[in-house]
């Protein structure tokens, strides 16, 4: 789905736990999620920490939408990139 959204010209990032699958199906912008049944949460954390975790994942996702990329890119949490490359 995310690939088709990009195809119409909208930058779209996929937050998902299984990065190899996102790469296989052709997502261009990928952020690694926490886990399959709770991609943007962690039930082991206190509620307040969990919201912070979500915010941090979303900051990375939002950042990925602002970057000009040439190829499929996995955006890492809290690491700011320089230049092109497969991992940012």
């Amino acid at each position, binding site marked *: 789905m995310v690939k088709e959204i990009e195809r119409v010209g909208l930058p*779209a990032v996929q937050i998902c736990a*299984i990065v190899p699958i996102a790469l296989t199906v052709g997502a261009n912008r990928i952020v690694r999620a926490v886990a399959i049944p709770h991609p943007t949460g962690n*039930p082991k954390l206190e509620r307040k920490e969990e919201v912070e975790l979500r915010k941090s994942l979303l*900051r990375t996702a939002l950042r990925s939408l602002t970057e000009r990329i040439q190829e499929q890119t996995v955006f890492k949490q809290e690491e700011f990139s320089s230049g092109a490359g497969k991992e940012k």
Partner: protein
Amino acid sequence: MGRVKVAHYLNQFFGQIGGEDKAGIPPQLKEGPSPVGQFLEKESGDRFEVVRTIICGDNYAAEHLEEVSPVVLKWVEEVQPDLFLAGPAFAAGRYGMACSVMCKTVHQKLGIPALTAMHSSNPGVDEARREIYIIETGESTLDMKRVIPRMVTVAQKILDKASIGTPQEEGYFPRGVRINVRAEKRGSKRAVEMLLKKLRGEPFETELPLPEFDKVVPAPPVTDLSNAVIALVTEGGIVPKGNPDRIEAHNASKYCKYFIGNVNDLRREEYQTAHGGYDPVYANDDPDRVLPLDAIRLLEKEGVFEKLYDYYYVTVGNVTAVASAARYGREIGELLLKDGVQGVILTST
């Protein structure tokens, strides 16, 4: 070659440990066969002996592929098998991915023949079909009886170094290997015959299928995030309580759009998951764990971006046909573009 020692990889379900609630279990060992292993032994006329079964939860394997591989490798090496089998995984994506990665690793690192089986929609197919034989299956375990004999046949041919037929004959996914054969008619005749069939609208079979490269050129980025409208989309099945539009738990026939313009937090009393492919406990306890509305509202308030789009789109990505998913994506993308959205965050489970 006499008896064949087999190591066998299975998920928690076929390993008889449990269902989706046990999908998080790390790899574990069982000496001897599981019921699927017994079936393989029987089909081989007891030539195969499953000496060790390695079982790992689907979620654990898919999320920790790099860590599970060396463990499996070590456990396989310990029993010095002649053959490594995984699955069959049918249409289960996480399981198929694990089967393919384990087979590829065992084959490459230990030089042991490895084979698995799954459905054509499984992402595990593209992961390893060039390196190993992957037998094509139906979508569900109903196909077990047809698939096990095929796995055994191809595995025995590999072990006996017998010649293996074409993908059509043996029922495996094409590996991109070319083998020279002497054809009855020369190339020019075959080409003209094929052209005539094509002109008459008759079925014909190409001798050289063209590869399908379906990469999408990345869309231009959001230039000014602080002035951008962002939309949330999910394949994780988060719907209003009671699933009013009845999105199917698997192979969803539709996507839906729900208003969230006045919602700041997805409360468990008001939202739930309709997805049938993962343990729903965490998502039902707090739906923000799949559709992160509470956190994105906070970022919106902080001014990180201008505005969250007033609706979210949702479907269930669980054994959903690729063609349907592609259509949903295209339609959702066009609708969002028309409504002035500049960037999309999609979550999947």
